[in-house]
């Protein structure tokens, strides 16, 4: 077999990340403590290289006989994951230094997890899809438990592992049924395959879709399969939570978007199911976040809520494939905003005793004006206030829903987003409208990396909000 027909260049970003992860482990094994300072830059270099090959792809052809895609969907999904990862490496550098996290393992596992995420976004067949999910999941299970000396971290890892494997089982069974119904592993041919087999295959396929969607909803933490999420997000190290809530989510939505697209003409039953889940997720996520005093937990529920908005867009792909573009747009600002927010939460909490309590934010505007300003911008972005890109994401998703005739869902979504404004603004209220607690008036030491990462994210979200066309044009053609 000629190697060039495999087109290995299509897998280049994934290969670079995996290679980077191995290099990190190797450097740690050979260099010991001396290499410690080099691990973060090495990882960042790998991510930058992967991002470069992702933004300027060597090939636009699929590879490995269609198992790896290089289409706009892969482009958008990969870029989003890598952008979030880059912010994480930049903003979390000092977090890694100060925490008792084993640095080499954390970085290597993060890179391996990212490899899985990229592969998920570009998966062209059922097996690659499943493998990618397992690669990213296993890395995340291990990452969640990295602070093993703390009970919450152990608890998080175990919960995540158990529910995650459960979800994987559902998923695998669902994919098997789909394969049986369609007679092909290739995602693009699923729809045709099912149609060719006619009658009975339709029902088997529907079962397959429902089961694999169950697995998917578990993974992205959508209601009613979300109960693991708050504990896992709160208990895991913030570094990991930031990564889970952005990269994993982006990859999952890209991967499942690709899975669902060819099924749209067959049946919109799954779209109705997703619509119900979207409604529940938006309601439960937002209202649960409302009463939280633990900021990390609040952000956890907020990411449940955002899964709801993404599902709202995803269900609309059942009616018009282009709606997937809205989902992919939404994911980029969401990733850019969430990563620094979790890291800021860790930073503020460290200065206040590590409880992630909202009281730690009192008077933050006086204690670290720059960080507080960025925090406010990021929160307003997540709340979907124009002209930040969070607004454009919401606009596109709601527009997709209205286009699909789901005006009721759009109304529900937009009303719950007002609830979200309340709890996002609550942090701004604490940071700006409250005076610092008497015992904590000293200025916070500036965390340069984190400030830079948050600044870049804020700038990115502003630019994307004012010129959304920049990103929309790059990812043009998703879902067509």
């Amino acid at each position, binding site marked *: 077999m000629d190697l060039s027909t495999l087109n290995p260049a299509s897998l280049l970003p994934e290969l670079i990340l995996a290679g980077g992860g191995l290099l990190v482990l190797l450097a740690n094994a050979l260099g010991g403590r001396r290499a410690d300072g080099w691990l973060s830059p090495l990882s960042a270099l790998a991510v930058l290289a992967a991002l470069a090959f992702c933004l300027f792809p060597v090939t636009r052809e699929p590879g490995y006989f269609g198992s790896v895609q290089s289409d706009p969907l892969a482009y958008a999904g990969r870029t989003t994951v890598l952008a979030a990862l880059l912010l994480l490496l930049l903003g979390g550098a000092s977090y890694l230094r100060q925490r008792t996290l084993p640095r080499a393992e954390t970085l290597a596992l993060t890179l391996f997890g990212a490899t899985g995420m990229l592969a998920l976004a570009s998966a062209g067949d059922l097996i690659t899809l499943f493998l990618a999910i397992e690669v990213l999941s296993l890395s995340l299970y291990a990452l969640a438990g990295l602070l093993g000396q703390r009970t919450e971290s152990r608890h998080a890892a175990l919960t995540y592992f158990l529910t995650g494997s459960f979800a994987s089982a559902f998923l695998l069974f669902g994919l098997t049924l789909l394969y049986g119904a369609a007679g092909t592993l290739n995602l693009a041919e699923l729809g045709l395959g099912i149609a060719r087999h006619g009658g009975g295959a339709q029902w088997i396929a529907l079962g397959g879709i429902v089961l694999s969607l169950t697995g998917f909803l578990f993974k992205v933490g959508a209601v009613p399969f979300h109960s693991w999420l708050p504990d896992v997000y709160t208990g895991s190290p913030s570094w990991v939570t930031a990564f889970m809530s952005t990269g994993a989510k982006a990859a999952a939505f890209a991967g499942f978007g690709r899975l669902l697209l060819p099924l749209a003409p067959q049946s919109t039953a799954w779209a109705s199911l997703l619509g119900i889940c979207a409604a529940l997720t938006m309601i439960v996520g937002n209202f649960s976040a409302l009463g939280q005093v633990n900021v990390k937990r609040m952000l956890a529920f907020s990411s449940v809520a955002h899964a709801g908005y993404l599902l709202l867009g995803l269900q609309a792909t059942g009616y018009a494939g282009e709606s997937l573009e809205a989902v992919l747009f939404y994911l980029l600002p969401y990733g850019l905003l969430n990563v620094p927010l979790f890291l800021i939460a860790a930073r503020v909490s460290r200065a206040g005793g590590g409880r992630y309590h909202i009281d730690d934010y009192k008077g933050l505007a006086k204690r670290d004006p720059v960080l507080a300003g960025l925090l406010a911008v990021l929160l*307003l972005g997540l709340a979907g*206030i*124009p*002209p930040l890109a969070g*607004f454009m994401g919401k*606009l*596109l998703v*709601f*527009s997709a829903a*209205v*286009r699909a005739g789901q*005006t009721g869902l*759009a*109304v529900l979504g*937009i*009303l719950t*987003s*007002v609830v979200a*404004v*309340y709890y996002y*603004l609550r942090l701004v*209220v604490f940071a*700006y*409208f*409250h005076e610092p607690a008497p015992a904590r008036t000293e200025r916070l030491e500036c965390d340069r990396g984190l400030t830079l990462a948050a600044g870049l994210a804020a700038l990115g979200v502003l630019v994307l909000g004012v010129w*959304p*066309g920049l990103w*929309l044009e790059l990812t043009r053609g998703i879902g067509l």
Partner: protein
Amino acid sequence: MLHQILPLLTFFPLAALLLLWLIPARQTGLLKGAALLLSLLEFALSIPLFTSFDVATAGQYQFVVQADWLPRLGISFHMGVDGISLLLVLLTTQLLPIIILASFHVEKALKGYLMLFFLMTTGMVGVFASLDLILFYVFWELVLIPMYFLIGIWGGTRRIYAAVKFFLYTMAGSVLMLVAILVIHWNTLVPGLGRTFDLPLLLEHFHPAAGTQLWLFAAFAVAFAIKVPMFPLHTWLPDAHVEAPTGGSVILAGVLLKMGTYGFLRFALPFFPSAVQALLPLLVGLAVVGIVFGALVSIVQKDMKKLVAYSSVSHLGFVMLGLFSLQTIGVSGAVLQMINHGLSTGALFLAVGVIYERRHTRLIADFGGLAAGMPLYAFVLVFFVLSSVGLPGLNGFVGEFMILLGSFQSQPGPTAIAASGVVLGAVYLLWMVQRVLFGPLANPKNQGLPDLSRRELLVFAPLIVLVIWIGVQPQPLLDRINPAVEATLELMRNR
């Protein structure tokens, strides 16, 4: 340059904001000077808008700019002003330097305070100039952020409650408008162009069924009614006004509330004429209730600022009544009254701010006999109270008279009740003046209060000039308003 004047007016304040940002916060003198200069520059830039505006075609959009923004989604950067929005833009730009000048005494984080007003100006000018629904919505929401911080940081004791209430209340109202905008977008196919958010094109091609129209109108109307605010959606206003710093109150009463009435006139009425007709009794009824309720509540207020705030509910009720008369004279009167209210009530908030600064109280009972020691202040307060109650010769009279005249033709009954609001308005405002300015100077703390400084006189002077000018010679304004109003009503009839 003239054809780019609207984007310039919209984004110059942003550039000004960045300039101010570069000035170190400790250099307060430089900050004040620069802010005043930049705000005057913004105002100066807006003068050609008035002078070059073609009165003969005041019913059409002028200074139009249209550029691609998101062509694939049908969103464009489309701006233009007709006679109505022209005056509202000018109201905004002329209030800016006045507010900046009035804010020089602010000690807490002056730099941020000044910067927020420039950010707000961008939003407000953008709202009045936008001719694309998404562009409009972006500016509409943008205004919330600076106001939220103004109330929350520089406000009074219950500032946090007021700021959050303001933000959530107005946001909750306007998000449904966004869904309605999307529904309009997906239900309109412009021949040869496809889907669009362009206002003039949508007005031409959007023809909804009566049932849909009702729902869509409701979504728009709630958003605008909260902003106005119309009874019973006014409850955020007294809180926001009382807690906001003086400058915030001025901009809130002066311009922000007009965004609501403007929204009704520009969007809700021409888009949904049959829904307006169907709901007219309700709308007129709420306007009348607002007039009387606002006036009655004002009478019993103990706090001057709260009194002025509730008077806004009453006065804006008149504006709504004028709009719902659907007669040229009534609607034109309503537009004129928007401007008048912006000037007079803005000035009243400034006047309340003047004595609050000196005495740190706004309770009417704490004052009395101020006229003896502060003759200039007494003149200013009496002057703007008279302009507010509609003394012939001053601005308020013209607007109120036109509104009642127009409204009487279509709604004689409600108008008769509403007219009582004029009398009640005189009662609560003049009674307040009597208790604050006249009588014996009983409270020793009020003795020796300094009269208006030269800076404060400078704050009030332009407003006094405008109030007299509009009162004596409203024709130049009406020349611009009338054709635009007629065009709007024509649009309603043709749909």
